[in-house]
C-alpha cells in the first residue's frame, strides 16, 4: 500500500505542476496579446472610460503584480467573472460540464460496443475475404476527420432522410449523431488495435502450450487470446476517453451541444478570458484524472504490474 500512496502523491504533485505551467502560460498569452480593458469597455467607449475600467479591474498594475493576484485568486478557486454574463466563470463551467462528460461517456460506450466485438472478430483470422473488406472500410474511416463524419451524418440523416434533428440537446434523437461522431473519431483506431492485439496474442508461446494440452480454438480464443489482447487495449481506451473530453469541441459546435466546448469557442470569440481559463483548467484536470485512473486500473488488471510495486 505504501507504493500506492507514493504513486498518488507523485501524481498529485505533477498535476499541480501541470496546472501552474498551464495557468501561467494562459495568463501571459492572454494578457500580453490582447487588451482586456478595450474588450470590456466595448468598441464605442472613450479613452477615459477605458482608463476607468482599466483601474477598476486592476489592469493598470504591473503585469507581475497582476499575475500574483491572479494566482492568489486561483488558489481560492476564484477564476474571475465572465464579461459576457457577469456570472463567475466557474459557475458557467459547472453549468455545462455535465453535458460534455455525458456525451463523452456515450461516445466511449458506443466506441467500445463497436470496436471490441469488431476488432476481436477481425483479429481472429485477419486474412479472410469478408474481414478484409471490413478492415479496409475501418481503414478508410480512420482517415476521415470527425467533423467530416459529422457533416456527412447531418447531410444523410437530417437533410436527405430527415430522420433526426440537426442539432439540439434533449431527446434521445439529439444524442444519436453527436455520439456517432465521437465514436467515429475513436472506433477505427481501437478496432485496429484490438484486432492487431488479438492476432499477436494468438501467436504467443503460451497459446501453443494451451493447444498442446488439448484446448480447442474457442477456448484458446476466449480464455487466453482475447483477455490478453483487451488488457493491452485498456491503455488506449483511457487515453481515448481523455481525448474525448478535450476533443469534443468540434462535435459540440456542429450539433449545438451546450457543453464546455461550445462555451470555449464562444468565449474565445468574445475574448471572455476568465471563462477561457476556467474551461481550459477544467479540461486539463479532467484529462489528468482520467489518465491517472487508466493507469490505476491497468495496475489492478495486470498481475505483472499489480505485485511489482509491493
Amino acid at each position, binding site marked *: 500500500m505504501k507504493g500506492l500512496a507514493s504513486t498518488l502523491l507523485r501524481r498529485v504533485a505533477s498535476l499541480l505542476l501541470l496546472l501552474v505551467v498551464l495557468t501561467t502560460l494562459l495568463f501571459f498569452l492572454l494578457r500580453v496579446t490582447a487588451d482586456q480593458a478595450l474588450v470590456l469597455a466595448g468598441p464605442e467607449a472613450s479613452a477615459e472610460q477605458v482608463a476607468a475600467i482599466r483601474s477598476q479591474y486592476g489592469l493598470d498594475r504591473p503585469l507581475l503584480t497582476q499575475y500574483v493576484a491572479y494566482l492568489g485568486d486561483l488558489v481560492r478557486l476564484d477564476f474571475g467573472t465572465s464579461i459576457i454574463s457577469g456570472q463567475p466563470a466557474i459557475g458557467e463551467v459547472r453549468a455545462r460540464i455535465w453535458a460534455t462528460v455525458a456525451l463523452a461517456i456515450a461516445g466511449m460506450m458506443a466506441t467500445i460496443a463497436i470496436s471490441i466485438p469488431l476488432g476481436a472478430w477481425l483479429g481472429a483470422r485477419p486474412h479472410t475475404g469478408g474481414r478484409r473488406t471490413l478492415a479496409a472500410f475501418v481503414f478508410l474511416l480512420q482517415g476521415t476527420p470527425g467533423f467530416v463524419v459529422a457533416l456527412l451524418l447531418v447531410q444523410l440523416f437530417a437533410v436527405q432522410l430527415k430522420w433526426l434533428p440537426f442539432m439540439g440537446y434533449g431527446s434521445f434523437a439529439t444524442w444519436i449523431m453527436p455520439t456517432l461522431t465521437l465514436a467515429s473519431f475513436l472506433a477505427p483506431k481501437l478496432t485496429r488495435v484490438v484486432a492487431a492485439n488479438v492476432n499477436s496474442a494468438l501467436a*504467443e*508461446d*503460451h497459446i*501453443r*502450450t*494451451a*493447444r*498442446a*494440452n*488439448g*484446448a*480447442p*480454438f474457442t*477456448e484458446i480464443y476466449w*480464455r*487466453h487470446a482475447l*483477455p*490478453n489482447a483487451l*488488457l493491452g487495449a485498456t491503455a488506449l481506451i483511457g487515453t481515448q476517453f481523455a481525448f474525448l473530453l478535450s476533443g469534443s469541441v468540434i462535435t459540440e459546435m456542429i450539433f449545438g451541444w451546450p457543453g464546455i466546448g461550445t462555451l470555449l469557442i464562444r468565449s474565445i470569440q468574445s475574448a471572455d478570458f476568465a471563462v477561457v481559463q476556467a474551461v481550459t483548467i477544467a479540461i486539463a484536470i479532467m484529462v489528468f484524472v482520467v489518465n491517472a485512473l487508466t493507469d490505476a486500473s491497468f495496475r489492478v488488471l*495486470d*498481475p*505483472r504490474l499489480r*505485485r511489482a510495486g509491493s
Partner: protein
Amino acid sequence: MNREKGMTTPNTQQVIRVEDLVIEFPGEDAPSRVVDGVSLTLDRGETLGVVGESGSGKTMLSLALMALVPKPGRVQSSRMELLGNDARALDESQWCRIRGRDVGMIFQNPMTGFNPVRTIGRQISQSLQRHAGMGFNEARERVISALRDVGIPSPEQRFNAYPHEMSGGQLQRAMIALAMINRPAVLLADEPTTALDATVQAQILELMRARVENCGLVLVTHDLGVAAQICDRIMVVRHGRIVEAGDCAEVLRAPQHEYTRALLEAAPRFTRRRLMQAPRVASTPPLLEGRNLRVSFPVGKRKLHAVDGVDLDIWPGETVALVGESGSGKSTTALGLMGVHPLQGGELRFAGDDVTHASGERLKRLRRDLQMVLQNPYGSLDPRWSVRRILTEPLHAHGVGSRASREARARELMDQVQLPAEALDRLPSSFSGGQRQRISIARALALSPRILIADEPVSALDVSIQAQIIRLLMDIQTRTGVAYMIISHDLALVHEIADRVIVLYLGRVVEQGTAQAVISAPQHPYTAALISAVPVVDDDGTRTRIVLGGEPPSPLKPPSGCPFHPRCPIARERCSEERPPLAKTPGGSLAACFYPGEVEVDLRLSDVAEA
C-alpha cells in the same frame, strides 16, 4: 470420462509408430523440406533421444507428433500411429481430446510457455478439468500434489502464483507437472533444459528420469550429454534426415556415421589429455591485477552487491576461466574490468598503472589493450553495418591508420579468423552464428589487445561450431600471445582450455587454482556440484552426481555465514554462523570452505586420442 470419443487405449507396448514422415514449408522457389522421410517407433516406458543441431528439423518432428506444425507447413507420412490408432485420420476436435491427455509436451522456454496473466494453478487445472471432467476444487487438490511431486516448495501458495513470480527452473517444473497431469502415454520434451542453468538442468533431468516410468518419452535435444544421461535409444538427425539411430550406449560407444562421430567429438567430456600439460603461469608480474573489486547496483533503496570483493590476476599469454551459475557475477566482473560498470571499491592495475577509476581518454587508452567478445553473436553486430564498417569501427574510434591501412587491416583480420575477404561488403545477416562470432573476435582483435575477455563465447552456438571457435581462439593465442579471460558455465570446456580457474558464487570467489587442480580435485562443494552438473557423454547413467537443491539465493538477501550453506550437501552448524575465508588447501588451490575437499567428483575421464 470422454475417453471413448478419443481413441481406445490398446494393450500394445508400442505407443508411437511413424513411417516416412515429411514436413514441408512453401519456399520462394521450391518448398523446403524440414523433415525428410523420418521413421520412428516408441515403446511404453522407453526414452528416445532425437539429437540434432539447429536446422535439423527436430522441433518440427516433435510438433508433428501432436499435429501442431504451424501453418503453412504440410505434414505427410505413409503411417502415423499413436497408441495403435491411425493418427492421420484424426480431425482437429479429436486431436484436442488427445493432446494433453494421451500425449503431453514440454517446451523449451518455460518463461514464455505460460499465460502471463493467469495463475499457474489455474492453467494446470484447466487441463484436468478438460480431460478428466473434474471440478475446479477436485482438480486443485490434484494439481497441488502434482506440483509437490515435481519438487516445487509450498505448492499451496505456488498454485496461486503468476508466471513472473517464479524462476525459470520452477516454471519448467510446473511445465512438467502440466504435461504429466493426465498421466499421458507419451511425453514429448523439446530442449527442456536448454534455457536453464547447468545446476538446474541437472535437477530437471533427474526429475524427468524419475517421473516418466510408465510412459514413452521423446527427448529432443542438441546435447549428446543430456541424451546420454536419460535415453535408451537415440536418433541423430541432420537436415531433416536420420543419419544414425540405435541403442544409446551403443551409438555413443561406436558411432557409425561420421556426423555422429563429429558431434561426439565436440560434446562435453573431461579428457585426460589436458591433465598432462603443465600450467603456463609465468613468473613475471601479472598484466592485470584486481584486488577486492566491488560492483553494486541500487535496487530500490537497497544495494545489490553483484561483485563483492573479488581478487583476480591475469598474466600475459595465459587463459583464466571465470565460472559460476547465472547471477554469480561473472559478466558483471568482466564489465567492471572494462570500465562499463564503475568499480565501487578495490583497486585495479594494468601493467602497473592504477586504472581503478579510469575514465575518458585513460579508459579509451586502456581499451586498446583490454578488449572483450560478447556472448551473443546475433546481437553484438549492428545488423545495418557491413562487415568492413564493423571491423574498422575500433580503428575509427581510436583514430588509427589511413583509409588504405584500415582496409588492409580489415582484410588481415578476415584472414586471421578464416573468413573470405570478399565478404567484407556483406551484412551480418548473411553469416551463420559461428561466422558472426568470428567477426566479433576479429573486431576485438583489431587494436591488437594484450588481454581479451570472452563472455560465454560459444554457448549460443551449435556444438560442432563451438569446437571450431575454440580452436580458432587457441590458434590466435598461439600466434599473438594474447591473454584470455574466458567466462563460462561449461566446466568441461574450461578444463579443456584454461590454465587457471576462478569460481564465483554470489559475487565472491569461492575457489581458485590451476585448472588441473580445481577440476580434478575440487575443494569447494559448489565447484564439485558445477563439475558434476556437466552432462558428459561418457555417462552411462552410473556416474555419481551431486545435484544441488534449490536455486542461487538473491544477492539482495545473501544467507548468513557461508553464502552457499543452504544448498550445500555437507553444511554443518558452523557454516550458517561464520563465513569461511578463502584459504590455501593441501592441493594448492584456494577455497572458501571449512571442510575443503570433502565432496568428491566422478569426472568420467576419457582418453581421447590427440587429433
